[in-house]
């Protein structure tokens, strides 16, 4: 059985096929596009009963067993729940896209990326292996990058995409490290096996691994302080925003936490991280949302708030918390996606989605207005919607804790939840009222220029109706859909009985009170917006991010200036000093006592002393010489002394070669150096001491390298073999020549290749006709540069700066 893999493959392959089909040609493709996700949804729906009865579908495919890498898929309650959301909403999005991008030549490309994203997301929630999860996780990162930057000509889109990718990649890499640590500790990367490992929660490495995993989950799910990328990602086309930020990508982090919940939720580290980070994010998102007049930005902050809520709920092990978690995921998907989609329709129809320019759309876009109102009702938590059920459960959880001795946490949680709910309600009321019902916009009004067809709005309407009335029938699907998911998060079967109506409990009254306060916030929206306008912009996580990236660029710039901007001498010094350091280390920091000094000859003869002195004088003359000619001659003298050494120590071939080479080198140097500009005279600059230091160090290096040879002769040299066999086997009595052309002729072959290459290089560089033409052109260019006071480069620099 490989149904899971087949489903993923179907979605993956749908992308390229659609790309080839050029779907922008007709709206009929909307139906075709919805088909693959709909099929997968249907298949999953058929599995619901089986999964609810406790049987899970597991598939494992070997990938790289050596690295513990495999593709493991598992369809349990949680996977099925998320999977249904992904493909279900995906069906609506796929349908909607065709209308949203009508006539766009790149629609096929959008579908290509969208399907791959969908498949990755589905794979992510189905995976039962940490590394598999990571693979799909990165798949969603890349595809969302492409989706966000769909309008790649606009800087805002590209910039938002970049920020999203960098932040999520940073988290993902931390997460990968955490996964590797956890996997090495557990001896497997399989999630089910890790969760079943008894000692895993208490292992020494677990806190480190968990923190790294949290980094991944928090960045992906836009938790504080990483929430700033999400609003920037709103520059994506609306179908992508709706999909990525309502039901799918941002839930990936939440999903990971829910997956790990059974094994690690006992740890205090787990509780406090999730509770504090989630709670803070929840309040921050909710309070910020009302500030924005861009519909999508407002919704983005509302999404951040809900994501914080979900994270906070996962901190708890209580039944209510987990029920609230699952129901909130469902409710959020069903109201946030329609809101986003409606914003897209408004944008499409009016040419803007800025609330300041919109008013009274209810008349022009009645279907959209209906959609938005229903979604608003759910989002604000007005009974009998799904949103109301979620809010009830959330408050119930904290009230329960408050009653059962956990006063502090319960009270705090209750306050946080209530505060966020108030502001979320206020924000969504603002959105609905200002766009659809008020009479007059704040700003210049936008005009309807393109009325949407019914089918454009249909997917949003469908979803919103499900969200609005779904809670009424909760009893009919809670056992097959919600209970298995809750059980999977809890790690054990839990009996679930959800009721929409709990009676007139304190929680209900609190809920009603929140609604009233939400209306108050809505009415006072002008005041809040003015207040927010006073908050300095530098005081945000985005500023911290920018400062970090800025610091990296600065550092890079500094480092590069040092590396690349420097002249050659420092670079050369570093290379030479590296060699010196090696010898220095070996001579002074290793145990040299095992070595003994060997020497084959006793004392140098007088001739040798004389040659030695001559060589040193000549070398120093080369350095100190004032004229080019004397320097070249001095170098030649050094060469001659080397030749003399060769003669004395029995190397006539070497001596002959060295002499001839010396002659040719002098020829070359004279030919060249009398036509190039003379060096600037030596000035005693501030680098002089350093130069001397390097020179002395190199002197030590040379001395030590020769002496090392005489410290220890470990084995017999192989050279007697050559002397013995030269005549008989090599047919020659000049052993050096026999070595060159026979024993080690292969070396010589390489050597003459070097010469051949040198000849070719010299030939290529020295074609005089071409070179002089070039020189004349360069002189002309130089004169032009000199006459032009402002070079062109500074202009381009300014342009870039303005950008």
């Amino acid at each position, binding site marked *: 059985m490989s149904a899971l893999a087949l489903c993923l493959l179907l979605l993956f392959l749908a992308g390229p096929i659609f790309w080839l089909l050029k779907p922008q040609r007709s709206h009929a493709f909307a139906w075709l596009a919805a088909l693959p996700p709909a099929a997968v949804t249907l298949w999953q729906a058929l599995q619901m009963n089986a999964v609810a009865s406790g049987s899970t579908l597991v598939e494992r495919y070997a990938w790289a067993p050596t690295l513990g890498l495999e593709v493991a898929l598992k369809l349990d309650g949680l996977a099925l729940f998320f999977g249904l959301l992904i493909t279900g909403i995906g069906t609506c999005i796929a349908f909607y896209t065709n209308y949203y991008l009508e006539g766009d030549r790149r629609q096929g490309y959008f579908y290509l990326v969208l399907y791959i994203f969908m498949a990755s997301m589905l794979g992510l929630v189905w995976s039962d292996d940490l590394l598999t999860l990571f693979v799909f996780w990165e798949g969603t990162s890349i595809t969302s990058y492409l989706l966000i930057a769909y309008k790649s000509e606009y800087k805002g889109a590209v910039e938002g995409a970049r920020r999203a990718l960098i932040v999520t990649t940073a988290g993902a890499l931390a997460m990968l490290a955490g996964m590797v640590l956890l996997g090495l500790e557990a001896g497997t990367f399989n999630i089910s096996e890790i969760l079943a490992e008894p000692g895993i929660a208490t292992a020494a490495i677990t806190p480190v691994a968990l923190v790294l995993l949290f980094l991944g989950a928090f960045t992906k799910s836009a938790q504080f302080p990483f929430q700033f990328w999400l609003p920037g990602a709103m520059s994506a086309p609306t179908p992508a925003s709706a999909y990525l930020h309502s039901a799918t990508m941002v839930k990936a982090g939440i999903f990971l936490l829910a997956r790990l919940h059974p094994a690690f939720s006992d740890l205090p580290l787990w509780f406090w991280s999730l509770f504090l980070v989630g709670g803070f994010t929840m309040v921050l998102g909710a309070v910020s949302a009302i500030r924005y007049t861009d519909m999508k930005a407002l919704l983005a902050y509302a999404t951040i708030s809900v994501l914080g809520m979900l994270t906070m709920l996962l901190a708890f092990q209580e039944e209510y918390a987990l029920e609230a978690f699952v129901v909130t995921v469902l409710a959020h998907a069903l109201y946030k996606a329609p809101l986003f989609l409606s914003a897209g329709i408004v944008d499409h129809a009016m040419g803007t989605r800025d609330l300041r320019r919109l008013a009274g759309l209810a008349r022009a876009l009645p279907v959209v207005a209906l959609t938005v109102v229903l979604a608003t009702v759910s989002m604000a938590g007005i009974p009998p919607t799904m949103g109301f059920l979620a809010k009830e459960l959330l408050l119930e959880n904290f009230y329960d804790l408050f009653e059962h001795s956990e006063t502090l946490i319960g009270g705090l949680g209750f306050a946080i939840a209530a505060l966020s709910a108030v502001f979320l309600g206020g924000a969504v009321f603002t959105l609905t009222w200002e766009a659809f019902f008020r009479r007059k916009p704040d700003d210049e009004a936008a005009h309807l220029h393109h009325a949407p067809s019914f089918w454009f709005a249909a997917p949003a309407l469908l979803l919103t109706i499900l969200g609005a009335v779904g809670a009424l029938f909760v009893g009919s699907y809670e056992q097959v859909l919600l209970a298995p998911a809750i059980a999977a998060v809890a790690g054990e079967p839990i009996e679930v009985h959800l009721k929409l109506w709990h009676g007139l409990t304190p929680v209900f009254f609190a809920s009603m009170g929140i609604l009233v306060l939400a209306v108050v916030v809505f009415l006072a929206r002008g005041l809040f917006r003015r207040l927010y306008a006073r908050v300095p912009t530098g005081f945000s996580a985005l500023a911290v991010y920018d400062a970090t990236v800025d610091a990296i660029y600065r550092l890079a710039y500094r480092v590069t200036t040092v590396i690349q901007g420097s002249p050659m001498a420092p670079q050369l010094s570093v290379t030479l000093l590296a060699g010196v350091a090696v010898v220095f280390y070996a001579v002074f920091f290793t145990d040299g006592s095992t070595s003994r000094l060997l020497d*084959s000859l006793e004392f140098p003869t007088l001739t*040798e002393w004389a040659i030695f002195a001559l060589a040193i004088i000549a070398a*120093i003359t080369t*350095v100190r010489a004032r004229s080019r000619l004397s320097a070249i001659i001095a170098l030649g003298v050094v060469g001659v002394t080397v030749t003399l050494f060769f003669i004395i120590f*029995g190397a006539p071939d070497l001596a002959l070669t060295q002499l001839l080479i010396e002659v040719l080198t002098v020829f070359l140097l004279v030919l060249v150096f009398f036509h190039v500009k003379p060096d600037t005279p030596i000035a005693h600059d501030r680098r002089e001491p350093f130069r001397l230091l390097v020179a002395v160090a190199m002197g030590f290096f040379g001395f030590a390298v020769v002496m090392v040879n*005489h410290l220890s002769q470990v084995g017999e040299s192989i050279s007697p073999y050559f002397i*013995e066999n030269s005549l008989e086997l090599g047919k020659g009595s*000049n052993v050096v020549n026999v070595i060159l052309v026979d024993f080690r002729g292969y070396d010589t072959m390489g050597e003459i290749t070097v010469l051949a290459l040198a000849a070719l290089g*010299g030939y290529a560089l020295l074609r005089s006709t071409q070179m002089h033409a070039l020189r004349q052109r360069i002189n002309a260019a130089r004169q032009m540069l000199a006459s032009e006071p402002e070079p062109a480069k500074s202009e381009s620099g300014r342009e870039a700066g303005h950008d």
Partner: protein
Amino acid sequence: MTAIMLAVLVGVLFACGAYMILLRGQIKLVLGLGLITHAVNLALFGTGKLTRGAPPIVPHEQQVTAAMAGQFADPLPQALILTAIVISFGVTAFIVVLIYRRDALTGSDLAPGELATVINTSDPFAPFSSRMVMPEAADDYDILQFELDEVYDNPQAEGADE
């Protein structure tokens, strides 16, 4: 002792060569490299057994025994040095030509340096970098380099795009 003398000589040659190549100036660069080449060759020579005056030329028509082999100078380092000498001659000749061409093209006598201002920091996606101030180009930098490239790489100026 002779070995120590040789080692001292090698050290002096290395020191002089290193000092010279660190000085600015292309002629000094080549001469310094020449000194270092000599130093390396001598250092290699010192790795073998130093034998005064017995070149490794085995007399004709004579069977050489192991005992006799010790009387000859070590032939292997000689072959290696010969290879090294010839290779470094090829490299030196090439460097000389490079410097010649460089001088002919740019008329500069300094050892080559990178153009500082080509390190571009203006990143249009990053507003912060526009605040970055470029350091003043030091005198070591070869300011002309980049403009010259443009002249040469421009096919209109080249006159032959085919």
